[in-house]
């Protein structure tokens, strides 16, 4: 006898429950087996990148970030000043390290892939682990491979840190990675520079001083990259309280640092370092000088006064600041 519609109705409801149960269990079991037998292979570099909290994305609610798994390109915020591209050299020279011209074709190819991933990270928002994965998928092998990977990781961490400078965990990992890269036999002037920057940001000026000196000694040629090293080395001297050296370097600033005119690009970096080293009252003095050479007398005076009021300056620094303030007054009176 055929089932009544009512009976059939209830039977179908039971079948729905059975389907949901069995199909659901099968799917979850498959996912579990996939994770057990084909787990994602993370190595220490990927683990270091994975263990950090996600970069907060202002304006994007958490429920929308659930859907971001390297699919959605986003435009990251950027400051010009953060783009300290130490690799820009005006001409190829010989340094104590390994300038780009000395790299093998394979290493150059791997490095280009790495640089592309850094750009994709900062412009298109791919994840750090995806960037590293893509570099590894290139299949290029050689004794330089682990160095290039470490180099990529330190660059990615720098980009991540610049996106969210409140993330101290990232800064710690950045410093560790940059130092490992700088100590590698394949390291060059660039790695020393980035290690110096990372140590400077992390509050370890003594280490930064060593790295930045190595960088400036081995930099192949003058230009924007050299100028950046010069700038941060000057700040390192300022933090150490070496006023005579700082004053001398300020005198050479315009000749050495091509971007001196674009104060809006590097002043945020000075602000960041002033926040890390509040006791280094020569940093406001440097800022005051930089504002003076671009004729922003208002900001220059504020910075110089701040340096004087904070105290801790020696005689040479105070005299220098007074000379600067007098010069500003004379300019204004003209």
């Amino acid at each position, binding site marked *: 006898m055929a089932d009544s519609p009512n009976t059939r109705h209830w039977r179908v409801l039971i*079948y729905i429950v059975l389907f949901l149960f069995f199909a659901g269990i099968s799917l979850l079991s498959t996912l579990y087996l996939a994770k057990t037998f084909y787990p*994602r292979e993370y190595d220490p570099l990927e683990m270091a990148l994975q263990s950090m909290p996600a970069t907060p994305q202002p304006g994007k609610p958490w429920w929308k970030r659930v859907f971001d798994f390297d699919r959605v390109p986003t435009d990251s915020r950027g400051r010009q000043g953060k783009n300290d591209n130490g690799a820009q050299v005006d001409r190829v020279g010989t340094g104590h390290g390994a300038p780009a011209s000395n790299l093998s074709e394979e290493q150059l190819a791997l490095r280009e892939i790495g640089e592309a991933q850094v750009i994709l990270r900062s412009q298109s928002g791919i994840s750090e682990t995806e960037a590293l994965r893509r570099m590894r998928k290139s299949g290029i092998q050689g004794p330089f491979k682990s160095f290039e990977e470490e180099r990529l990781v330190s660059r990615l961490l720098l980009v991540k840190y610049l996106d969210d400078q409140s993330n101290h965990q990232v800064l710690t990992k950045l410093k560790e990675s940059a130092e490992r890269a700088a100590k590698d036999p394949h390291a060059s002037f660039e790695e020393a520079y980035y290690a110096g920057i990372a140590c400077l940001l992390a509050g370890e000026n003594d280490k930064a001083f060593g790295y930045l000196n190595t960088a400036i000694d081995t930099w192949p040629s003058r230009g924007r990259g050299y100028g950046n090293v010069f700038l941060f080395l000057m700040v390192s001297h300022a933090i150490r309280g070496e006023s005579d050296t700082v004053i001398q370097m300020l005198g050479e600033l315009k000749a050495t640092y091509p971007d001196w005119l674009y104060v809006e690009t590097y002043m945020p970096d000075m602000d960041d370092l002033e926040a890390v080293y509040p006791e280094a009252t020569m940093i406001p003095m440097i800022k005051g000088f930089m504002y003076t050479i671009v004729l922003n007398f208002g900001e220059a005076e504020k910075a110089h006064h701040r340096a004087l009021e904070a105290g801790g300056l020696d005689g040479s620094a105070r005299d220098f600041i007074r000379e600067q303030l007098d010069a500003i007054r004379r300019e204004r009176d003209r």
Partner: protein
Amino acid sequence: MSQLLLCSWSSIMIFVFMVRKKYHWTVPSYRYILLFVFAGMNSTIPASLTNNFLGQHTDFYVFSGDRSESFIGFALGAGFGEEFYKLSSGLLVLLILGLFKARLRPVDRCLGMVTVGLAFATLENLLAYGGVGFWVMMTRGVLAVPLHATMSMIHGVAINKAYENGSLWPLFVGYWVSAILHTLYDTMSLFMPDIDPRLYLYPLVGLLLWWAWYEWAKLSEHPDTDSTDLTMQDAADA
């Protein structure tokens, strides 16, 4: 607002077209339709979590450089995963309505399941593809959204078969068929990288739409039993 429209134009058109084609004497129960919409939107959450899980914890990541890993990632995530969540969310609505003794006609069940698929596709557009260009969204409206609708139509047909025969197997068949077709849609480009995907995706979606249209047309607005609409006699009198 324009972004919302860009993400939903195709879903709205498909829904309106289906209703106008079928519901001449009756109207669908919009309370139930809302439940299906809600279910479809909710199904995007486990789908996204599954895709994230695959990408972070397994080698089967859709953007993996390895073709076979990518294929399995699509199959598990997009194919079997998404289709399960869409089908199960629709089934849950039917289960709840069934427990409250709400009787839906086959045409209502199909419309409900397609609504789940359309809601899923719309939310996917908004959340995962919001911000991409105008023409990308138009293309998704022509390809991806109808694909989700036709997959859900398969679910609807399977559910109707289950109700008609009082059996379980149509649900599994419908699930597998939709999962395999969805996987095929997502992975064909992996195995034919040199061929413009439009050359095979448009015909595939076109074929599926034709089939779905045929099945929709076959359904009667007036089955012989259980609904709140007009009886045959009332319809004749009207």
